[in-house]
Structure formats: C-alpha cells, structure tokens
C-alpha cells in the first residue's frame, strides 16, 4: 500500500478510536498520521509523499491568497470611476508536461480574477492568457511562471 493510503487509514483509525465522526477530527487524525509516518520514515524507505503533501498544501494556500489579492484589484477597478485596466493577450510558455498538470494550471489561472486562459497551442507548449492589468507583460509572464506553474509542477509532477 502506498504512503497516502496508509495515511488515510491512520486518519480513519483515529476517528474510530476517538469516537466522534466530524470533519475536523478526520483532519487532525490525518495530521497526526502524517507525523507518525514521517517519524518511521527510516524504516519504510523515503518516499516522495512527504514533499508532495507540503507542495499541495502550499498550492492551496497560495491560490487562496492570489484569489483574494486579485479579487480586490478587480473590485477596486470596478468601483472607481476611472478604468485602470490595460488588457492584453500574452503568450506564456508551458513547462508542465502532463495533461492533469496543464488542466490544473489553466483552471487556476482562469479562477484568479485578472487572468483568463484562452487557449493551449496544439503542441502544448504555449498558453494564451488574457490579462486585465498587463502594464508590463514580461513581469506578468514571469509572475505566472514562477508562481502558479511552479507550485503546480511541485505538487503534480514532483521536483
């Protein structure tokens, strides 16, 4: 059984032992199981799993942060009388290889207000992105690549 399955099993055992089936309890069981598995790592042989979980947590947290930040920007532009939007369609080269990775990157880019993924080229190497505040396309491209795409690669494809 892989490490993730073992961790889920430990979380379920924790729920049964403490006798209260709430979501928070399941979550704390998962965290405790993660700690236990991390402690016995020398016995089971090291696995990518531990770094992967951290990467996923980082992806979710950073995504929520980006969502809040860019929602604020768009809301501010809607509410103030002067339009500050400088829209542009920019090309972003893709480093993600797997289908799941590309899906995740495009979905996350679409979900943050201010950027909208339009199309992936046929050879899956470039992504067309419509950006609302593209005063500096180069900086925006670098931000997308070192931000969203980096986190997705860490989480889905491993380092």
């Amino acid at each position, binding site marked *: 059984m892989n490490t993730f399955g073992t961790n889920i099993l430990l979380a379920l055992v924790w729920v049964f032992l403490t006798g209260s089936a709430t979501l928070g309890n399941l979550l704390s069981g998962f965290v405790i199981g993660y700690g236990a598995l991390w402690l016995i790592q020398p016995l089971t042989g090291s696995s990518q799993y531990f770094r992967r979980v951290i990467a996923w947590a980082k992806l979710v947290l950073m995504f929520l942060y980006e969502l809040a930040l860019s929602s604020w920007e768009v809301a501010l532009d809607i509410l103030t009388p002067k339009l500050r939007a400088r829209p542009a369609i920019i090309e972003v080269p893709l480093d993600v290889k797997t289908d799941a990775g590309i899906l995740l990157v495009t979905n996350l880019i*679409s979900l943050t207000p201010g950027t909208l993924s339009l199309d992936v080229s046929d050879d899956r190497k470039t992504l067309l992105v419509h950006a609302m505040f593209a005063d500096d396309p180069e900086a925006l491209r670098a931000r997308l690549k070192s931000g969203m795409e980096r986190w997705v690669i860490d989480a889905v494809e491993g380092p």
Partner: protein
Amino acid sequence: MTEMIVAGLILLGGVFGVIGAVGLLRMPDVLIRMHASTKIGTLACGLIVIAAAVHFGSTDITIRAVAIVLFLLLTAPIAAHMIGRAAVSTGVPLWNTRQPPSATPVPEKTP
C-alpha cells in the same frame, strides 16, 4: 463570536456579488466582463456557502458545503474558458487590447 463570523462572511459575499453585477454593466468588452462576473461571482458564492457551513456546524452540512465549493471551482473556469475561447476565435472586437502577432484568431476546428 460564531454569529459575527457568519455575518461577516455573508456580508462580504453579498458585497462581492453586487460588485460582480456592477462590473458586468460597466466593463468595456466581453473578456473583461468575464473577469468581473464569473470569478467574483464564484468567490461570492463560495463565501456564502462557507458561512452556511460555519453557521450549522454539523458534519453533513459541512460535507455538502465542501462539495458545492469543489464543483463551483471545477466548473466555473471551464465555462469561462470556453466562452472566452469562442469570443477570441470568432473575432469579437476587443477594447484596447494588445495582442502578440501570433495570436491571430484561432481557426475553428471542424469536428
């Protein structure tokens, strides 16, 4: 304390909903209008659903709330992507938009 959190979340969700609707009226072209409507709408909806989960605080309601948020996050960007792609590939005029030379309208693929 819980009531304050719930009230804050619902208020924030409502305010974002209104902002999204205003943006739908104010913004100059189709793609920018989608920035305003779909995504801020998703955020508003998510905030209100989370508020409901916090208010009831029971496991079955929380699980349903998580499922609703997940489906919102899964479907909203796909719809936005398809509408945006259709708009660009049919050559809808865009307001003040800089485009790379290669980004000529995508030719429609015949099935």
